[in-house]
Structure formats: structure tokens, C-alpha cells
């Protein structure tokens, strides 16, 4: 959807501020929320596209003002309700009211953690599907504005680019974030010149490379 998260190209956010000697986590709760959310994946509760879809529903003002891991906390709270791991009452009270009811089940066992983190499941699919485009093709990113989750940002829609590389087959996030159906298709790195994206005042020699799915593009003759 055309949410606040889709911020590539927006102006007036100010300088990029880097913190000196920044710790990985600023507080213990950040580490905990991060770990629990990540564990949802090998525990089989959800996929990464669903996690992103939920994060994108944070109301705009809250999204912009939140500290980074506050967005993760929002997402985790919504996720445990959506997947019936906790009820609203359990979430609010912090009490295990249903005694492991709903979809609650043991998460990743401690002895599995290191293995799970060092051997993430590949997300590219080992299938032989025809590609819609070839390297070198000129393409037009679609003028699509779905209300559902998508990974084509606004700043490339309607712009012309060139296929640089075919990365193989992946599940389209647009459906994978919403319970399917599975839509396996090719993903390509597509290069757009900066002038194509931002107008004639942009530097002549610069470009943006972005990964687009078959469904995000049309052929340019």
C-alpha cells in the first residue's frame, strides 16, 4: 500500500545522524522483542512478508516518531493476536489465561537456536519457471497502487529501467503477506538512471538498482 513506510525520495527528513559508539541494543527489552519476533519464523508462525505487512500498518505519525524497536514491538503485539498465540486479555494483563491455548506452542528450543541462525532457510525456490524478461531488456515499472502489501516503491512506478540480472524464482510478497495464493516468479535487479527517477537536475552519471518481480513490470518496445 502507499503507506508512510514507502519513503524513498521524500524530502525534509533532515541530516543522517550517526551515534558514536552505538550499542547494538539500547535496552534489554529491544533485544528480547527482536529475538522473540525473529523466532516466530523458524517456529513456523509466520513468514517475513507477513511481518513487514503488519509493520506497514503502524499509523503514520506513530511510525515516524517511533524508535526502531518500538516498531518491532507494535508488530509483535499485532502478530501474536493475529496468529491466536495470545488473546487481547492475555496481552494486556501479561497473564497466561488460556494455559497454552490457541496456537501457543513451544518456540525454538535453545539447542536449535545456533543452528537456525546459521542455517537460514533459502527463500529462492529451486523451480524452473519461465522468466518474463531477459538481461538487457528495457522495462516499465507498472503504475500499480495496490492497497495490499507490495515491494515496489512509489519512486520507481511508471519509470523506465533496464534488466541487469535475473536472480531466479521467489514467492511474490504481495500474496505471501496475505496468506497466498503462492505466486512464484522471477526477481531481477533493474537499473534506473537518476535522471529518469528525479528529473533533469539529477546527476548525469548516477543510478538506482532495485529488485523487481515479474508482476511489477511491463515490457518496453
Amino acid at each position, binding site marked *: 500500500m502507499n503507506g508512510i*513506510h*514507502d*519513503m*524513498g*525520495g*521524500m*524530502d525534509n*527528513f*533532515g*541530516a*543522517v*545522524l*550517526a*551515534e558514536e559508539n*552505538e550499542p*547494538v541494543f539500547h535496552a534489554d527489552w529491544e533485544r528480547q522483542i527482536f529475538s522473540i519476533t525473529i523466532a516466530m519464523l523458524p517456529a513456523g508462525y509466520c513468514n*517475513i512478508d507477513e511481518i*513487514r505487512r503488519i*509493520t506497514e500498518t503502524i499509523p503514520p505519525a506513530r511510525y*515516524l516518531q517511533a524508535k*526502531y524497536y518500538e516498531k518491532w514491538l507494535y508488530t509483535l503485539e499485532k502478530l501474536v493476536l493475529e496468529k491466536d498465540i495470545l488473546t487481547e486479555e492475555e496481552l494486556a494483563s501479561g497473564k497466561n489465561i488460556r494455559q497454552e491455548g490457541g496456537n501457543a506452542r513451544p518456540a525454538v528450543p535453545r539447542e536449535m537456536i545456533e543452528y537456525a541462525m546459521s542455517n*537460514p532457510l533459502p*527463500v*529462492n525456490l529451486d523451480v524452473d519457471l519461465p522468466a518474463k524478461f531477459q538481461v538487457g531488456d528495457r522495462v516499465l515499472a507498472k503504475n500499480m497502487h495496490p492497497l495490499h502489501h507490495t*515491494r*515496489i*516503491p512509489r*519512486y520507481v512506478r511508471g519509470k523506465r529501467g533496464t534488466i541487469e540480472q535475473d*536472480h531466479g524464482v*521467489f514467492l511474490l*510478497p504481495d500474496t505471501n503477506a496475505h496468506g497466498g495464493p503462492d505466486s512464484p516468479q522471477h*526477481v531481477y*535487479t533493474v*537499473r534506473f538512471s537518476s535522471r529518469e*527517477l*528525479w528529473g533533469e537536475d539529477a*546527476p*548525469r*552519471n*548516477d*543510478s*538506482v*538498482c*532495485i*529488485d*523487481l*518481480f515479474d508482476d511489477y513490470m511491463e515490457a518496453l518496445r
Partner: protein
Amino acid sequence: MVVCTLCSCYPWAILGLPPNWYKSSPYRARVVRDPRGVLKEFGVEMPEDVEVCVWDSNAELRYLVLPMRPSGSENMNEEELAALVSRDAMIGTAVVSLP
């Protein structure tokens, strides 16, 4: 330069977790549109004849920059060269230079 304009995707498995600035609105919004301005803020001036390309990691591929080897480092071995490389150089907001 590498960014995730839509969220905060980053090559965790190789670089660890990203710095806060990488995940911030200013970086996510600005680097695809004005990479040279962002580089200036990081103290890097890129000549006009050098092509700057920003990679938006919006799908499941993850990217990092192989930093350019600095001139004057021809006699350095692998260990010495590795000591020169910084995390920021692998995101693309720093260049590698001799100490």
C-alpha cells in the same frame, strides 16, 4: 551505496545488525534521491565523473559494497588490507583509505 527504503533489510549474516542511521527515515528517504548529499554528510566527496549507484534491497537479495582498494596499499597483505575495511565502507558511506 546500499539501502532498504521500505524497511531495514541488511546483510545480517555477513555484517551483523545495521546501525540505527541505516534504518532511520533520513537515510531511507534521501539516499536514493541524493546519494552525493548523504556522502558529503559522511565526509565523502565523490567526483562528478564517478558513477554513484544506490542499491535498494527491497526483495530478498542482500547487498554489500566491495570497497575500492586504496592506492598506496600495493605492498599490504590480506590481513593488513582487512584491517583497513570498515563496516561503513561495506554499506557505501565511507571509502577505505590508508591509516
